[in-house]
């Protein structure tokens, strides 16, 4: 935010002559020096500064990462809300109960991000579930598995992009719940697949994905265009 304001102030020439006159030459140069250092830092943060991007702007810095998480939680919550509204044929009582739990967890995550982001929150996204057959157990659970595994890799990949230790801790509180969901969904598809080699690498590590990789996969299910070009990349 501050970086962008400084940048705009300089580029737009908002600093008027009268503002500059009161500043000694040495301080003025110092001001410029500081400003250019800020610009360099900002440029280093934003490798993929593509002005042609359109759609809902997730924003930059930690706010951008929180909006990114908010977007994914919107997708998951909308999916499980539909799963519970129109249960697949043959759903068991146990599956219904635990899928309702998962719906509630995802709604809690979504609403938490919305509350935490307040005025910085992106609007509600429009989802596209035309590729999912909600009456089919196979279709619903395959989608659930994809979403949960994707969520785990998304949070794992986003951790390093977060500056605030408090936000990192919050992401950590959520990602392990997504992993619990993922393992459960995998097990009711095929018992024992909770952490098989399609999810976990030979070192015993889950995978992680960049926001660009995650959003490319999620794109099938999100109608609203998302602009992630201002997210941090390291």
């Amino acid at each position, binding site marked *: 935010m501050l970086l962008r304001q400084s940048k705009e102030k300089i580029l737009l020439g908002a600093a008027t002559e009268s503002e500059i006159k009161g500043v000694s030459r040495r301080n003025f140069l110092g001001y410029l020096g500081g400003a250019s250092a800020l610009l360099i830092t900002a440029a280093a943060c934003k490798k993929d500064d593509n002005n042609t991007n359109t759609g809902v702007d997730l924003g930059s810095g930690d706010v951008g990462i929180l909006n990114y998480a908010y977007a994914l939680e919107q997708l998951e919550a909308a999916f499980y809300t539909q799963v519970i509204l129109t249960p697949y044929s043959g759903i068991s009582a146990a599956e219904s109960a635990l899928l309702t*739990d998962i719906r509630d967890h995802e709604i*809690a995550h979504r609403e938490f991000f919305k509350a935490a982001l307040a005025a910085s929150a992106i609007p509600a996204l429009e989802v596209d579930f035309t590729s999912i057959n909600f009456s089919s157990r196979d279709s619903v659970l395959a989608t659930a598995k994809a979403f949960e595994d994707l969520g785990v890799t998304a*949070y794992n990949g986003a951790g390093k992009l977060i500056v605030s230790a408090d936000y990192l801790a919050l992401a*950590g509180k959520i*990602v392990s719940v997504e992993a619990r969901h993922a393992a459960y969904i995998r097990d009711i598809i095929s*018992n024992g697949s909770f*952490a098989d080699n399609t999810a976990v690498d030979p*070192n*015993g590590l889950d995978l*992680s994905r960049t926001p660009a990789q995650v959003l490319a996969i999620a794109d099938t299910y999100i109608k609203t265009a998302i602009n992630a070009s201002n997210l941090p990349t390291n």
Partner: protein
Amino acid sequence: MNLQNIITEIEKVDPEVYERLNGRRDAMKSFAKASGKVALAALPLAFGSMLQKAYGKGTGVTGLIDDTLNFALTLEYLEANFYIKGIASAGLIPTPAAVAALTTIRDHENAHVSFLRNVITTLGATPVTFAAADFDFTAGGTFADVFSNYDTFLAVAQTFEDTGVRAYKGQAGNLMTNNDILTAALNIHSVEARHASHIRQMRKARGVDVKPWITGNNSGIGSVVAASYAGEEVTTQAGVNIVNIGGFTISANAASEAFDEPLTKDQVTAIVTPFFA
């Protein structure tokens, strides 16, 4: 996290950081500015070795990472040895499916031990080492039948996995200065949560009233493991009340399940100490 941010943060507590790092402030700043061009994978190692030279081994940022990774390694040894012994205990595990699942988990814990040992060695530090004889999985008799009673075995497994998840979560902040190591730790953290989910399903199948996620501070085990679940019952996150948030019907149980909670290193140490002989 941006390299310049890290150096700026260090500078707040140590104004001499640039001198320590390089002796020449300008040269260091050049490095920081050029960092966007350095291969990303090489950067954390390069930066780590600079800090190590600046502050010396065992102190400062690098020392914190070494200590944190050795703490994680200790927990992985605990888990790995537990599953090795359980799987080797004749008659303990009743079904082939259960043997397969526990073998998957054992293999992950062994892989975590190897992985963390390699990372710690790469950082120039010394990994801790534990052998089977270093552990007492009865915890001084508290779980006397751990390797002869399958339900006790699963109860201890659940406690280890849930505690492991909370332990990694509590340490993430200590690894923020190294993106590669932070990401690796997060990637282990979520695997432990997958394990916990499965062990809980195994217990559910045995008639224990637990779900794949942690409801309130209930363990389905009893007060003997209360410390591993203390604090999981919270329903407020960052000052936001999760119960019925946004006008949606979210019970206190769901609100607590939706967020796993961290444990501090001291809390985890107190929990696992009885399991060391």
